[in-house]
């Protein structure tokens, strides 16, 4: 090993493990620090979308859309987390439903969807038939004890 090891010296396989432990916004931003890592954003194994990291629901959904659109859906998706904190319009809810469907196409193992304002995200029924899922958490409410876990 070299006498001085930097993050840039790590093999991609190790870098990917570290990146997958970060919220997706940070993970993508770090991938875009250098050409060497930029392709990793296309195959992130863990997508943790948290609206609390965005200034508005509009920006948030635009971001989710951007990441899901470029994602290579042949790559394994281990985790899909979606945390929504704002009230959404019916059009926005439709977009969210599309993104959840896209995520389910990648056969995730771990799915968590939090809807803090209980705006009735339409959960695709195929989520209950997706046999790759081992952990499923669907939660509505403020997160202060009145949430309901369906699974």
């Amino acid at each position: 090993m070299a006498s001085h090891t930097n993050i840039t010296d790590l093999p991609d396989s190790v870098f990917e493990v570290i990146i997958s432990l970060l919220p997706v916004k940070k993970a993508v931003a770090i991938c875009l620090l250098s050409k060497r890592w930029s392709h990793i954003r296309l195959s992130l194994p863990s997508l943790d979308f948290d609206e609390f990291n965005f200034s508005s629901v509009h920006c948030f959904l635009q971001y989710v859309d951007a990441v899901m659109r470029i994602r290579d859906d042949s790559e394994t998706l281990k985790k899909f987390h979606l945390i929504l904190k704002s009230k959404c319009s019916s059009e926005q809810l439709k977009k969210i439903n599309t993104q959840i469907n896209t995520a389910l196409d990648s056969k995730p193992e771990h799915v968590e969807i939090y809807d803090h304002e209980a705006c009735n995200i339409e959960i695709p029924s195929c989520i209950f038939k997706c046999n790759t899922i081992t952990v499923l958490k669907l939660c509505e409410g403020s997160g202060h004890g009145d949430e309901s876990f369906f699974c």
Partner: protein
Amino acid sequence: MSSSVEAITVLSSDGDEFKITVSAAKLSKPLNWMLEDVCFSDDCDEVPTIEVNSKTLVKVIEYCEKHAPRANSGASDSDAEELKKWDIEFMKMDVKDILFHILMAANYLHMEGLYDLACQTAADLMKGMTVSQIRKIFHIKNDFSSEEQEQLRRQHPGCSFD
């Protein structure tokens, strides 16, 4: 053939000798295979080299010796809790200096526990930094052309190349 000694001597990539107990060495898959294949005894001349520098190897051995009793015989919840606290203190190290060495060593030595711990430490560290801090601290050069940056900005509104 299994080992008949309690500790073995290993060489670091810098050529320094270190002692590691057999039970601690078993935390590493390659070292464990080596222990199974080679008969180590007190008059054994065999001193395997581990391609990890001395400074890192000291930390790796420290981790192994601490975790070996639990790995070999199981532990109570209070022991597990104590070990968790110990891990946190253990990882309070000069990041630029040694964290990535530890990570590479854990990867090379197939040590799952230390690898997961080091990955989580690296992720937590980056969680607490802005992207421009990460670029600066780790000397990551922006090697995108202005056209590529423009294209990436269209794909990811708000991404920064500063």
